[in-house]
């Protein structure tokens, strides 16, 4: 059964084409399932997309942000090299005389074989480490609800790869020895590991060597082809899904949620209640998941015992997609008449529990750290949209806050006519009084009504005046930006609020806006263009930073304190503002800035985003409480807060202040 000779090569060809055919068919079925999804245009900026593939797939940029990611780097490149080598192996399987050195020359082949040796050894090392991590270290992010299945899947893959590599070395070792004995064969001695392995075959006869070589060759080849067939059915589906997913990744800011078309009267359903109502790209996401767990590792809901774990959610959606998709694409099945439960499952409610859907704070940690650019948040918001707009299925607290926005344009339902009262005695003009100003200071609900936040607004006014900045406010005319209504899924309410506010602001001829709240900032900057609001929007830290640099503001007093800065989600991860607040703090004499362990794009969410501010936290532990814990086994890298923390977001500061008062007691 020596490979490349009759009848082995015919048998091989049959097996090879069968495997390839089966694989292609599986891929084709997957493609058809993806086609069930709704249209979405991700074909813009092809050049940038290709560069993204180079950076994030071949460069493994996000993967290696974690030390353990280097293991995957090795495995990934090992896999590439093995694939390149496999082509030679298959060539040999068809005709024994085929060899790379005959095509690309001996020097290049030597380099290739050396690389193969090194990387395969690297792969073995990485796999051993990964086994150690999975079964001994057992980090949080590898935890899974169906742990047995996940571990089994991992073991199968790891075993297969180890077997594959072992056979590769075995075959090579035998081949090297054969090369010593047969003329016309070439095996670069540069591939020193293979050469070392060949020592095992030192005293064998040529016939034995051929047998060993064939044996290893066949096992190696069958494992590869078996792998090819198995991949789409395991988490290694990500091998197929990840590259396209990275190619089609999102360029729009994550702070810009999609705008629903509410004008179209023929539309009968809003939001997503069935898996096929997601776009094809959202479905592709599910096929790209590597189950690395980095999303859940950083998720404030998952870390505090809420039903939501982004990894589990993606996994459940994937399972459902594949099961339901299979039924839907089967021409023999009539979906209406079919009794299969998978067809009847409610997406929001059964595949994903409503508690799961409501647990999300939209902090963006999942999307920031996902190596394959899965977009978790838009899926959750789409399901929320269905729950809110179609079923009115939400808690009484959410109903209260929605009504409050509708009636008084603020979440507490306080009289809208009193919105401008914070400015009494501060000598600030409204735009109605004086429209000829450079900036609109958009105060927001918290800045207008909350006791603590009003002090921030007043301080901001003072600083702007000191710096001689020309600005005005809307005063009692101001309306809520509606950001949270959109996060809660009430797109209808949001659109009416956004349309109203845009008209109001544009009616005053405003070109530039300053705001103190990162949520208002994010929506005014990234989402209001959907409604005709195209302004230059600055967060107050950006402006203050600018004013400091221009010398228009100078810190006068010394403040001898140790302080840390908590990056709010909507400023940091959403809008990449990390340095400006820090530089402002550093410019204050005497202030010592210490960084928390989780800072910058790993900052731990305060738990108030995504509308959660307005909901009771009844499940799991308190996100707000967990903010103050020292590192524990349960929450390994939560922040350690020094004496005082500086926050940029009104909700963050309020939840943290409750925490601090508790601590003081």
């Amino acid at each position, binding site marked *: 059964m020596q490979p490349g000779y009759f009848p082995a090569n015919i048998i091989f060809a049959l097996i090879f084409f069968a495997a390839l055919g089966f694989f292609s068919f599986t891929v084709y079925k997957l493609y058809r399932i993806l086609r069930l999804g709704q249209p979405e245009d991700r074909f813009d900026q092809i050049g940038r997309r290709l560069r993204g593939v180079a950076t994030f797939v071949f460069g493994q940029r996000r993967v290696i942000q974690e030390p353990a990611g280097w293991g995957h780097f090795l495995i990934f490149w090992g896999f590439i090299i093995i694939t390149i080598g496999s082509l030679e192996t298959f060539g040999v399987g068809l005709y024994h005389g085929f060899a790379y050195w005959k095509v690309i020359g001996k020097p290049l082949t030597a380099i290739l074989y050396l690389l193969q040796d090194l990387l395969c050894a690297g792969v073995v090392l990485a796999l051993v480490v990964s086994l150690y991590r999975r079964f001994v270290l057992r980090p949080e992010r590898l935890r899974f609800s169906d742990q047995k299945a996940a571990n089994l899947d991992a073991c199968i893959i790891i075993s297969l790869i180890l077997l594959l590599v072992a056979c590769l070395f075995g075959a090579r070792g035998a081949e090297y020895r054969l090369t010593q004995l047969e003329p016309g064969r070439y095996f670069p001695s540069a591939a020193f590991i293979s050469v070392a392995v060949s020592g095992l075959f030192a005293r064998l006869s040529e016939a034995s060597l051929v047998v060993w070589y064939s044996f290893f060759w066949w096992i190696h080849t069958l494992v590869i082809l078996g792998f090819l067939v198995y991949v789409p059915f395991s988490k290694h589906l990500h091998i197929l899904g990840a590259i396209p997913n990275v190619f089609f990744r999102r360029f729009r800011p994550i702070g810009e949620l999609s705008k629903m078309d509410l004008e179209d009267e023929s539309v009968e359903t809003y939001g997503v209640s069935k898996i096929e109502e997601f776009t094809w790209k959202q479905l592709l996401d599910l096929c790209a998941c590597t189950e690395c767990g980095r999303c859940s590792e950083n998720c404030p809901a998952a870390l505090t015992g809420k039903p939501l774990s982004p990894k589990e959610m993606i996994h459940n959606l994937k399972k459902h997609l594949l099961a339901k998709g299979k039924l839907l694409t089967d021409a023999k099945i009539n979906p209406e008449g079919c009794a299969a439960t998978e067809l009847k499952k409610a997406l929001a409610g059964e595949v994903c529990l409503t508690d799961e859907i409501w647990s999300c704070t939209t902090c963006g940690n999942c999307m920031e750290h996902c190596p394959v650019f899965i977009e978790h948040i838009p899926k959750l918001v789409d399901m929320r949209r269905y729950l809110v707009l179609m079923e009115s299925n939400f808690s*009484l607290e959410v*109903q209260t806050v929605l009504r409050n926005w509708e009636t008084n344009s603020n979440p507490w339902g306080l009289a809208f006519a009193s919105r401008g009262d914070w400015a009494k005695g501060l000598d600030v003009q409204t735009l109605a009084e004086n429209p000829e100003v450079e900036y609109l200071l958009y105060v927001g609900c918290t800045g207008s009504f909350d006791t603590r936040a009003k002090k921030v607004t007043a301080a901001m006014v003072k600083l702007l005046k000191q710096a001689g900045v020309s600005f005005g406010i809307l005063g009692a005319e101001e309306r809520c930006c509606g950001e949270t209504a959109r996060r809660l899924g009430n797109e209808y309410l949001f659109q009416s609020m956004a349309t109203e506010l845009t008209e109001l602001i544009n009616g005053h001829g405003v070109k530039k806006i300053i705001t103190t709240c990162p949520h208002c900032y994010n929506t005014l900057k990234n989402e209001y263009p959907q409604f005709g609001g195209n302004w230059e929007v600055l967060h107050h830290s950006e402006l203050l930073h600018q004013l400091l640099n221009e010398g228009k503001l100078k810190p006068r007093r010394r403040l001898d304190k140790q302080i840390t800065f908590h990056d709010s989600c909507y400023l940091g991860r959403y809008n990449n503002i990390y340095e400006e607040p820090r530089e402002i703090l550093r410019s204050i004499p005497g202030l010592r800035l210490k960084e928390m362990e989780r800072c910058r794009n790993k900052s731990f969410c305060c738990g108030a985003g995504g509308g959660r501010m307005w909901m009771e936290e009844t499940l799991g532990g308190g996100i707000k409480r967990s903010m103050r814990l020292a590192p524990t086994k349960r929450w390994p890298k939560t922040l350690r807060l020094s004496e005082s923390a500086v926050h940029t977001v009104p909700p963050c500061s309020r939840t943290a202040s409750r925490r601090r008062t508790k601590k003081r007691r």
Partner: protein
Amino acid sequence: MEIIVLLKQVPDTETVIKIGEDGKSIATSSIKWVINPYDEYAVEAALRLKDSQGANVTILSLGPQRMVESIRAALAMGADKGVLVDDPAAEGSDALGKARVLAAALKQIPHDLIFCGHRAVDDDENQVGIMVAELLDIPHLGLAVTIEMADGLIKISRPIEGAKVQLESPMPALITLGGAHAIWQPRYASLPGIMKAKKKPLEVKKLADLELSPEQVGAAAAKIMVVSLKMPVPRQSGLMISGDTAAKAKELVRLLHEEANVI
């Protein structure tokens, strides 16, 4: 089964009230108009019966054009059609005048049950609903906090001081609703509901359509009227009570009894 809900539009309860120039009505400049909360509970109660027993729910309102918005909001919750009686001749009516208009309109609409809030949170007259029942000569069950239907009878429970009373009546009957938001939890309209509401029938009628003559309603026919509105003793910035503990306690009790009339 035909259920009619009497619906009024009132200023949102958070509105800062300012007395208008005439001294007997409020300034309407910065008012957000909403469905009277008790009428909203009435809509919810009607819709619950619709869900469980099947019924047509009609919204009937008396007032100016702006009420259409609130009628549509009730339609979005699930009511089937609306009727608005909008006639300047009815302006200035006292409670009895308003009840006459509503009763006349109701005579033209088949009804098994009439639901309405026991009072409107603006003028707090607390009588129109019951007066309608009297004019239609049907039983009324007032201040309901629960409503059930069984064996063709409508049953309610209502709180009185120190007790809960259960009443029942055959139909047609009028129910006024008490309770609170946490008890009734009026449903939030779904978006399809809002869209459909735009197309549901909403009739506008005049007094002439109701076979009512202007002398029976309006300011001229009123038996009672508001002659002036007064702001209460300064409320905005609060009164800090001073003195020693005993004196403060005494003063607080006095204020609550004499000024606030709450104990």
